[in-house]
C-alpha cells in the first residue's frame, strides 16, 4: 500500500518534469542563455524564483531547458541501447552456437568495467560533444539488454508456437521479430525504464567532468560544474540544479521500482 503511494509520488514527479520540459519555452520567464551581468548572483526571489548564476542567468529557466536536454539524452540512450541490444541479443539467442558464445563473451567485457568509466573511455575518442556523450552511454548500456533478451529468447525458442511458425515456413527474421520478440520483450522494457534514472545520473556525472555538452549549455550536470566554484558565497547557484538531478532520477527510480513490483510479485512484500 505504502509502496504504491511511493510509485504514485514517482509518477507525479515524472509527469511534472515532462510537462515542464515540454512547455519550457512557454513557462520559462527568462532566456536560458542570454547573460545579464547586472543581475548576477541574485538570491531566490519572486523575480528570479531560484536565483541567478554568475552570468545573471535565471536558474529556474535554465533548469526547465536542462530538463528537456537531459530527458532527451536519457530517452535516446535507452531507446538506441534497447534497439541494438534486443536485435543482437535476440539473434544470438535464436541462432545459438558460436554466434551466441561470441556475443556473450563480447558483453562480458562491458561488465568488467562500471558504466560511467566505460563511457569515459569511449567518450575520450568521440570528443566533447552531445552526440559523443549519447554514443558513449549507448555503448555502455546495450550489453545488459542484449543479455536479458537472449535469456528470454532461449526459453521461448523451444516452445511449440515457434516450431509451428517454423513448420509453416516462416523465415528466421520473421520468427524472431513477429513471434518471439512480442513474447519476450517485457523484461527488457521494464529494465529500460529502471535504467532511465541511472542514465540521467551518469550523463550528469560525465558532463560534470567536462564531457558532452559545451560549458554554458543548460544541462544539469554542466550547470553544477560551471557554478561549483561559487558555492561558498552563493550556495543557490548549485543547490537547485543538483536538486533537479536528484528529483528527476528519484522520480524515474520510484516509477521503475513500482513497475518491477507489479510485474514481479516475488519482490512484493
Amino acid at each position, binding site marked *: 500500500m505504502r509502496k504504491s503511494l511511493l510509485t504514485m509520488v514517482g509518477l507525479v514527479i515524472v509527469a511534472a518534469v515532462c510537462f515542464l520540459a515540454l512547455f519550457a519555452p512557454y513557462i520559462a520567464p527568462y532566456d536560458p542563455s542570454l547573460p545579464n551581468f547586472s543581475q548576477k548572483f541574485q538570491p531566490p526571489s519572486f523575480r528570479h524564483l531560484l536565483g541567478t548564476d554568475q552570468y545573471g542567468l535565471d536558474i529556474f529557466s535554465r533548469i526547465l531547458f536542462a530538463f528537456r536536454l537531459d530527458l532527451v539524452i536519457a530517452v535516446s540512450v535507452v531507446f538506441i541501447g534497447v534497439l541494438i541490444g534486443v536485435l543482437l541479443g535476440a539473434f544470438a539467442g535464436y541462432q545459438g552456437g558460436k554466434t551466441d558464445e561470441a556475443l556473450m563473451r*563480447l558483453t562480458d567485457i562491458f561488465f*568488467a568495467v562500471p558504466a560511467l568509466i566505460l563511457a569515459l*573511455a569511449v567518450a575520450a575518442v568521440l570528443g566533447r560533444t552531445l552526440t559523443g556523450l549519447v554514443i558513449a552511454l549507448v555503448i555502455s548500456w546495450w550489453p545488459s539488454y542484449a543479455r536479458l533478451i537472449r535469456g528470454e529468447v532461449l526459453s521461448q525458442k523451444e516452445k511449440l508456437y515457434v516450431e509451428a511458425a517454423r513448420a509453416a515456413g516462416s523465415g528466421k527474421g520473421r520468427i524472431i521479430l513477429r513471434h518471439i520478440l512480442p513474447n519476450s520483450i517485457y523484461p527488457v522494457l521494464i529494465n529500460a525504464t529502471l535504467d532511465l534514472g541511472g542514465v540521467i*545520473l551518469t550523463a550528469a556525472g560525465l558532463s*560534470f567532468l567536462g564531457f558532452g555538452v559545451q560549458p554554458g549549455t543548460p544541462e544539469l550536470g554542466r550547470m*553544477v560544474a560551471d557554478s561549483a566554484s561559487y558555492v561558498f558565497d552563493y550556495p543557490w547557484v548549485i543547490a537547485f540544479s543538483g*536538486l533537479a538531478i536528484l528529483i528527476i*532520477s528519484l522520480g524515474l527510480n520510484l516509477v521503475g521500482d513500482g513497475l518491477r513490483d507489479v510485474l514481479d510479485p516475488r519482490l512484493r512484500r
Partner: protein
Amino acid sequence: MKLRYYITRRFLLLIPVLLGLTVFTFTITHIFTNPVSAYTTDKTNPQQLQQIIHGYGFDQPIPVQYYYYLVNLLSGNWGFSRSMASEPVLTVIRTLFPATAELAIVSIVIQIAIGIPLGILSAVRKDTWTDHITRILAMIGVSMPVFWLGLLLQYLFSFQFHVWGLPYLPTTGRVDSFVLSAHPLHQITGLYLLDSLLTLNFPVFTSSLSSIILPAIALAFTGLGLISRIMRSSMLEVLRQDYITLAKSKGLPQRIVVYRHALKNAIIPTLTIIGISVGYTLAGAPLVEVVFSWPGVGRWAAAAIQSLDINGIMGFTILIGIVFVLTNLAVDVAYAFMNPRIRFG
C-alpha cells in the same frame, strides 16, 4: 567441487574477460584514434614521423600491432601520461592509486557499517515509520548525484561550520600539509590512515581521518542505499522461515532470534551486492575526487580527459577493470565459502 577448484576455475575465467578489455582499449587507441598522435607534437618533422611509425610498429597489420600492445601491457609498458608531465602510466598509477584505494575502502566500510544495521532495523520494524524513512533514504541514495552531494557537504560541514564557529572539516586533499611537514610520514602502504597508525604518527592520523570523512561519505551514499535495501529484503525473507518461527515460539527474545539465528542466513545475499557497490564506488571516484581535490587516480582520469591524454584514460580503464573484476572474484569466493550450495551446484 572443492573450494580450491572453484577458486581456480573462477580465476581462469577472468583471463578472457581481461583480454577482452585489452581488445576494447586497443580498438579505442589503435583503430578509432591515431596511436601515433601520442608520440608527436606539432614540431615533429615528417622524417621523425616515419621513424615513430616504423619504430613503434604502427605500419604493421592490426593483429601484429595488438600482439605488441599486449606484450607491452604485460611487460609493464603502459605508455606515458601526457596529463601527468609525461610520466609512465604505471608510475602514475603506483603514486596515485593508494589515495583512491584508501578512499574507496573507507567508503565501503561506511556502507557496510551503516547499510547492514539499517537494513536489519528496517526489516524488523517493517511498515513502521523507521522502515519508511529508511527505504526513502535508500531510494534517495541511489538517485543522488554524488558530485553535488560532495559540494553540499563541503558547504555545510566546512564552510558553514566555520562561519558558525563550530569545529569544521577540511575540504581538499588527503592531509593538512602543515601537519605533514611537521610530522613527516614514513610511507609503508601508501594508505595514510594505516601508515600513520603503524608508525604511531597520531597528528597525521587525525588530520587524514578528518580529511577523508566528507569524501568517503559522499562516495558511500549510493552503495549505502543499495546495501540497506538488499539487507532488508533478505532479512524479511529469512524471518518468514519455519526455523525462525520455531525460535520465536521457544520464547527466545527477538534480539537473539534476529542476530543469532536470522542474520547468518540473511547476510549472504547482501554479500553479492557488495560487489556491485564496489562498482558504484569506483565509478563515483572520479567525481568525488574532483570535488574534494583528492590526489587519486580518479582525479587523474578527469584531468586526462580534459587534455585528451588517451594513454592515461586507457590505463585508468584497465586498472579499474582489474580492480573491479578481482573484487567480484573475492566476493564470489566469499559467497561460495559461506554458502556451500553454490560450490556443489
